């Protein structure tokens, strides 16, 4: 419709619209700059100093903090634990949530109750989740009691207290907490898919499995990809659950990059080093995020933005 206006009028309208947009954006931009951009820049600056937060910033050490972090076996372990959670989330947690979503999208009695039950853990605060699971998994706790009561007492061991099993136990807790969230996301995605398509597939003689595999799943793609993205970013930033449940222990066996950063920055007062770890974590998340946007999410985003203009 712009084509009907003469050029100068169009320019003026364009300028006015730009001013309006900028004015509306301004408050958000200011907040974003003060509370997001500035701290990031500050952290980058601190990360080049040996600094305990009290003395003036004078002890410039260049990239030493970064070298120290990247060559430190505890930090490497923490990165490994992050990767462990990402891989298992994608391999187990998301497929599990997808399966549940597919089941719960069918009509049957008690569907609402089940949806509510599965979603409930997500509503519980991280700290409370951590405390509940600590209580359940401790010796003489619920898990121990149930297994012993069932005559399977030998199966129990204090998983959170064993460096070899603590990450697996943490993964169970993390999955319990978040699968409901992914399930709801996928359920919402499923509801967007017109039932006519499945009916059409059925009329064409597709089995239920084929209809799901070749019609529903491809159409669920955009939601699934967002779900995977959120899961990866969440796993990279994993902090509260770990901090409350194990504190990163025993002997660093469940540290993540975020708990490692907190430990060094705020418990040991090495703010320079802690900042370097924070920057590494930030770059990690940024690279993963951008790469994912670029290679995986692009077709969804492109579709949404360019579809209208075309």
């Amino acid at each position, binding site marked *: 419709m712009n084509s009907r206006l003469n050029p100068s009028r169009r320019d003026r309208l364009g300028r006015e619209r730009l001013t309006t947009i900028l004015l509306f954006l301004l408050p958000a931009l200011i907040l974003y700059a003060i509370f997001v951009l500035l701290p990031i820049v500050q952290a980058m600056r601190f990360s080049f100093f040996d600094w*305990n*937060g*009290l*003395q*003036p910033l004078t002890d410039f050490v260049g990239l030493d903090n970064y070298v120290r972090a990247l060559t430190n076996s505890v930090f490497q372990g923490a990165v490994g634990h992050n990767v462990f959670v990402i891989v298992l989330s994608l391999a187990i947690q998301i497929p599990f949530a997808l399966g549940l979503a597919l089941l719960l999208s069918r009509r049957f009695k008690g569907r609402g109750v089940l949806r509510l039950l599965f979603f409930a853990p997500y509503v519980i605060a991280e700290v409370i989740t951590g*405390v509940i699971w*600590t*209580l359940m998994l*401790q*010796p003489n*706790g619920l898990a121990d009691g149930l297994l012993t009561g069932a005559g399977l007492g030998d199966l129990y061991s*204090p998983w*959170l*207290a*064993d*460096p070899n099993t*603590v990450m697996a136990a943490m993964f169970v807790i993390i999955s319990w907490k978040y699968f409901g969230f992914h399930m709801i996301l996928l359920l919402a995605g499923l509801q967007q898919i017109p039932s006519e398509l499945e009916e059409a597939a059925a009329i064409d003689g597709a089995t239920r499995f084929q209809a799901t595999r070749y019609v529903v799943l491809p159409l669920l793609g955009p939601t699934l990809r967002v779900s995977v993205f959120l899961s990866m970013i969440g796993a990279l930033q994993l902090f509260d659950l770990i901090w409350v449940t*194990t*504190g990163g*222990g*025993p*002997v*660093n066996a469940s540290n993540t990059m975020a708990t490692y950063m907190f*430990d*060094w920055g*705020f*418990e*040991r*007062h*090495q703010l320079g080093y802690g900042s370097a770890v924070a920057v590494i974590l930030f770059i990690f998340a940024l690279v993963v995020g951008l790469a994912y946007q670029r290679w995986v999410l692009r077709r969804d985003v492109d579709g949404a933005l360019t579809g209208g203009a075309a």
Partner: protein
Amino acid sequence: MSPLRRAAGLLAATALVSAACATGGGSGTATPAGPSAAPTASQGASATASAAPSAAAVEIDWYHIQNNDPGKALWQELADEYTAEHPNVTINLNVNENEAFKTKLATLVQSNTPPDLFQSWGGGGLREQVEAGLVQDITAGVADWQDTINPGAMGMYQVDGKQYGIPFDLGLVGFWYNTDQFEDAGITEPPATWADLLTAVQALKDAGLTPMALAGGDTWTGAFYWAYLAVRECGQEGMDNAVVTGDWSDPCFVKAGEDFVELIETEPFQEGFLAAKWDGAGSGAASMATGNGAMQLMGQWLPGTVAANSDDPENPPEWLGWFPFPSVDGGAGAATDGLGGGNGFAVGRDAPPETIDFLRFLVSEDAANRWGALNTGILPTTVGTEGSVTDPQLVDVLAGRAEAEFVQLYLDQATTPDLGAAINEAVATLYAGTGTPESVAAAINEFAQQ
């Protein structure tokens, strides 16, 4: 009685917070901001004061962290009594909670205006303040009354032989034990030597009991074992040398690890101890409260925390007893040497001379007796006032402290928060089974040399 108990619990919790600095809470360390501050009102006052100490009006800025009654009220009373006798002195009280105080002090230090009299834990934090020129050498000022204070406690406030602060409280780490369970296991005497302790552990195991509760999830608790054994093996000289020079390469630190491994190999700790925090669900304190752990190596705040994790949160269990850390054959340290820490006051660089006189009043026999009688967990350091504490469990701790010529300050306060954390972490590899005495000593030494 019950509000008093509650207060005791609270104070015990405060003590715990300062001890929990092992996890890196920081020991109020502060470094200077540079010599750029303008003279302040109090500096002006102090200049006048030194000219005519007895007559001119003087202000003393006093920062303490006993922010709960009855301790808070007692400090206020003492300040009022002092100013009534010395009308020319005004005392400006600043009462802060522990963490808030650290933040506030850091700010004051940044602007190069340290308070006249302020909370100090001695050790590495005080050393940093001395090196930054923020505190006063009061050696001469306290010379004629320093003998009235417990020498072990005084030592924590000395840097290179000079006195910079005065302690009013000193607690001690030792073994808290379940007297009922010891009886069940047929142990008649608390273990006096390390070998006795290992025997007692076996006796408890034979009786089907868990010999020890350890909060392995809070690594500062496990580090107490190593630190105490290091005090036994290395003695005062060895410890002082390591803390001051940062050279932890003496073989006595490996010996300490070997002694600890001897104990660890008997598997004395409760099931799942590696995940146990000190306080709360499934914690070391809760373990002991429920009879799952006959001994626990901990500071004087244990009774309050064990009570809080039991079905009678107000009253510490009556079966709790205390015995000092056992002696170790062949070590350089005396069997009576201790490991502990407490509270004191440091005197700021610009404080008027009256501050020292006021400080003397605060740790006078009368003041200390009044502190002791509160039974809040503050164990007075003024010689001869130990009897004022009447809580039977604290009395045992005081008896152990009275024997100690040398008390090693908690290692994370004696050094720096990050070295303290490195020690805790290294020692944890011993009881998690991933480290050796040699690797622990080497890791600590390497970190200290950085």
